[in-house]
């Protein structure tokens, strides 16, 4: 029992942080920053501790309110959850540190932190919950907080983007809710492990096929897979830069990819049909968004399209269903969280000093902003898949896995889009950071210390990200996560063994 007591803390700490800031933040100056950093840091440390605990004790389960699952709500940390927790909370901590300086230009810093931590608690909740309806509740907490955060600047185009995002996001949530209702009707239980057990006993009827389609639409919309991606290129550029980093970096992965993988692999059970749909949608997102991205002149909009394209890689890797494919997909998920948040923070730094997002107006900024320029270079090279940066290894694994699985066409597209990605980031580097400094930017200064600190941290993780593949680190972190997906519906057996202990 003892070790699993940390599980609810992943929801408690951000919630407490959020409401303490909204209660006291206005009265005591600087308190919002202090609470924010403390909560972010403690969550980050706890998530690493959770990985360690999982490797010592195996699956950790928690019964909320002492009601035993499947009747009560269960919270579960297995390899995949621990992996996602590290990803989410690491990025969240860097973003909190970045916001210390960046959010000074907005008036309501306290409100920002409140919404930010609400979103974080929603994401952590989605990751640790073992209950289907609970998953929906946390999904909505995170989604509603993100709608408000997109509109944070309250300018006209921001409100428009937030409204579009809210309408489409709500449609996605409705599909998810309908899917959960059908699944509840079919299995008479809401516990995810129990659902998996019932489905393997009763078989997958037509109703489960319907549920698969609903979930593909619902979670696919949250993950911004083509053709459900239309909200993302508006919403992500409109949000303040730290929030764009959170949305593109982790929100679409925690709510979309993680939930999709968990349900398809561990609850419904992956079939060749699901696998081929996932691979097709992944490749479609990769190609379509990659082609759309390269023509963009708005810095953040280009990054947003590139996010959709990279999500395609992740879904392709996970959809392959082979051990290597899943490993590559999850590794790319981790890497993409790191370098896409880094790139969005970079674009925020450029916007912070120059006040523009138009690539054509920039140029030569690396002379004046060496840290931003250097971290931008590292992030771009990493996402484009240049060795030895982390993005290279994950893309390599995905392509090798596709070749091994005899999916040569998918491997070809993955390699081709990788070149296209390189092209779009060379474009960013050329127009924003390299070349001659324009006359009007002669006076600009490098960004404040905390922004530099957070960008440098992420850049270092990008550089050394490849070490996750070293045998002894891989065994405790990435491999555990992919094993959890690979075991499929044995998840139920594993969870109930954990509960009985």
């Amino acid at each position: 029992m003892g070790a699993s007591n940390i599980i609810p803390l992943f929801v408690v700490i951000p919630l407490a942080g959020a409401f303490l800031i909204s209660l006291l933040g206005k009265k005591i100056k600087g308190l919002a920053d202090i609470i924010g950093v403390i909560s972010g840091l403690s969550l980050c440390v706890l998530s690493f501790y959770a990985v360690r605990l999982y490797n010592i004790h195996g699956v950790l389960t928690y019964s909320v309110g002492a009601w035993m699952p499947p009747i009560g709500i269960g919270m579960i940390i297995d390899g995949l959850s621990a992996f996602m927790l590290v990803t989410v909370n690491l990025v969240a901590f860097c973003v909190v540190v970045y916001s210390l300086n960046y959010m000074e230009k907005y008036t309501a810093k306290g409100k920002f932190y409140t919404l930010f931590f609400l979103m974080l608690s929603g994401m952590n909740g989605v990751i640790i919950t073992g209950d289907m309806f609970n998953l929906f509740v946390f999904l909505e907490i995170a989604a509603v907080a993100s709608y408000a955060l997109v509109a944070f600047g309250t300018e006209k185009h921001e409100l428009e983007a937030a409204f579009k995002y809210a309408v489409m996001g709500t449609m996605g949530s409705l599909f998810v809710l309908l899917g959960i209702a059908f699944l509840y009707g079919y299995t008479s239980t809401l516990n995810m492990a129990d659902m998996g057990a019932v489905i393997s006993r009763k078989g997958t009827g037509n109703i489960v096929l319907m549920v698969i389609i609903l979930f593909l639409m619902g979670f696919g919309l949250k993950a911004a897979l083509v053709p459900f991606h239309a909200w993302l290129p508006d919403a992500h550029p409109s949000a303040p830069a730290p929030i764009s980093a959170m949305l593109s970096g982790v929100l679409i992965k925690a709510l979309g990819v993680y939930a999709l993988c968990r349900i398809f692999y561990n609850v419904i059970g992956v079939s060749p049909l699901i696998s081929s749909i996932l691979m097709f949608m992944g490749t479609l997102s990769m190609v379509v968004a990659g082609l759309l991205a390269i023509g963009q002149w708005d810095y953040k909009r280009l990054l947003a399209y590139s996010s959709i394209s990279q999500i395609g890689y992740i879904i392709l890797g996970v959809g392959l269903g082979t051990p290597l494919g899943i490993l590559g997909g999850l590794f790319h998920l981790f890497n993409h969280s790191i370098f896409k948040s880094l790139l969005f923070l970079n674009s925020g730094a450029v916007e912070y000093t120059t006040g523009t997002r138009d690539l054509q107006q920039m140029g030569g900024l690396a002379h004046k902003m060496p840290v931003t320029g250097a971290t931008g270079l590292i992030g771009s090279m990493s996402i484009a898949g240049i060795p030895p940066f982390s993005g290279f290894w994950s893309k390599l694994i995905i392509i090798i896995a596709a070749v091994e699985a005899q999916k040569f066409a998918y491997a070809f597209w993955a390699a081709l889009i990788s070149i296209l990605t390189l092209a779009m980031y060379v474009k960013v580097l050329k127009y924003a950071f390299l070349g001659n400094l324009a006359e009007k930017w002669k006076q600009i200064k490098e960004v404040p210390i905390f922004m530099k600190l957070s960008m440098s941290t992420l850049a270092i993780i990008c550089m050394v990200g490849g070490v996750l593949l070293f045998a002894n680190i891989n065994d405790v972190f990435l491999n555990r996560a992919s094993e959890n997906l690979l075991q499929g519906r044995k998840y139920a057996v594993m969870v109930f063994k954990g509960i009985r202990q």
Partner: protein
Amino acid sequence: MSREHEKGMSLIVKTITRLTVGLILLYGIYIVSHGHVSPGGGFAGGVIIALSFIHLMLAYGKEVAFKRLSRTVASFFESLGAIMFLVIAILGFTGGYFFLNFIAKGEPFKLFSAGIIPLCNIAICLKVGAGLFGIFVALVLLKLESGEKK
């Protein structure tokens, strides 16, 4: 007639509001405090309580309503409700589990029974009531700038 009666709707609406608004508030409090033994609870009761203030605002204009419940107070109560709910959940750790019902359950169908559930109802009522009032205020005070820049 005092000056605060100059704004808002007609005399008929104001008179009816004056007579009913207290009853609505009281009914909301009843729904909350009786939530654990009869249908209702924190959410439903909170909505009814918020409606009583919204009713006041509709009939008398926003100044009168803000005198009863200002925006700062509403936002304070909203955060307080959330914190209260969380603290109740965390106090469950004293018995070993998050959200454990750690207070004696009492006799079924009595007012003082069901352990933490009435307390949770009150916390939810604060959160929902203040939150719904806040949303209404935000919608009322929102100024549309459309049409200005064309």
